[in-house]
């Protein structure tokens, strides 16, 4: 029953609530507010905030900040809409900032 045969998980850095699966990572090459960030196709046990329009490195997007459902730690954001066709693939996907999540190791 070790992690090595189960799903590889990412947790909230603050309270270790499970928020993402390694298999749902689309890209590790994103830039967040505090540094590197990962693009996930799904997120779990998070709360999605209100939508806002924001200018990001890649252009104008409508995003909603996401936070941990247990401790409300801000973890990243969700792409609600992208206004450039090259960025459309991000819609509905989640950004987790690397500094805010912890990879659960095998035990």
């Amino acid at each position, binding site marked *: *029953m070790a992690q090595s045969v189960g799903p590889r*998980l990412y*947790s909230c850095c603050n309270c*270790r609530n499970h928020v993402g699966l390694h298999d749902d990572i689309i890209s590790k090459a994103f830039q967040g507010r505090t540094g590197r960030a990962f693009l996930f196709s799904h997120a779990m046990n998070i709360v999605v905030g209100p939508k806002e329009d924001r200018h990001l490195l890649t252009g104008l997007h409508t995003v909603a900040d996401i936070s941990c459902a247990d401790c409300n730690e801000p973890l990243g954001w969700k792409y609600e809409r992208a206004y450039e066709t090259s960025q459309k693939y991000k819609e509905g996907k989640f950004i987790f900032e690397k500094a805010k999540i*912890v990879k659960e*190791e095998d*035990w």
Partner: protein
Amino acid sequence: MVVGETSMELDHQCFQMMMMKMGGVNIREWKDIPVELLMRILSLVDDRNVIAASGVCCGWRDAISLGLTRLRLSWCNNNMNGLVLSLAPKFVKLQTLILRQDKPQLEDNAVEAIANHCHELQELDLSKSLKLTDRSLYALAHGCPNLTKLNLSGCTSFSDKAIAYLTKFCRNLKVLNLCGCVNAVSDYTLEAIGNNCNQMQSLNLGWCENISDDGVMSLAYGCPDLRTLDLCGCVLITDESVVALADWCIHLRSLGLYYCRNITDRAMYSLAQSGVKNKPGLWQSSAKKSSKYDEEGLRSLNISQCTALTPSAVQAVCDTFPALHTCSGRHSLVMSGCLNLTSVHCACILQAHRAVPHSAH
């Protein structure tokens, strides 16, 4: 055991039967299992399965977080540190936590996490955690004041200041294992224990060779309930320590003096005298609610390598305490390496020679 069932098979038919028998409680899926039943099931499986179960869904996670009081992680050989970091915020009701390692993995940040979340902890085993520093002890002092049992044996990186600091906050300590913590145990530490941990019952100071009579005397004075004391390898100890223990610790049951070469007959006679002094009178025992052992005094004494002792002194101790045995079945008076003490025997050996079996114990 599932309520009303003898088989462990939980398929659809079983669920339906359970629904009928629980009269009204609608159980259709795993998530509907009552919390008490879930915890009962988990008490029968190993710790890895308990951890896996706590990640199944929010309902099970919450049930286990509130109900889990005991956890052992010694089976973890890879990344126990990460595992503790991830479990401490979840299992906040833990009372017993066993983290003894074969391969040193645990670091200060994990112990800090325990101290930040598990405030009800009573028993903590951190033995062989070679990587821990004083930071862990300061964290435990602030976060786990209800500790009664703490095992720090083999943790060689602690200092005496940190252990003394811990005793100021963890005043309910009853069992403390500091075996091998050479740098952490000095007379200063023992004085702190004597001042702060007055409920101490069992103390292991094995191989803490820096302690002297001053330390043991403050311990004896401050901890009247002391029952077990291991001073093996504490080479500076002299008769003064044993005299103080004999005077102040009337409940002493087990004393280890292995390799305490300065011990002489004076120590043995002081033990024998205290044994005689503390025996309840013949007419007291019916009114007094004392166990069999209370009346018998010392149950275990290790004087191996205490080569200065003579047979008459040791025999006096053996005669005073009927629970001390040299016979092979119940050997509790250990005298390895004391070649001049081979004539010392417990009463059982004499009885073996009698034709009629005589019951005295």
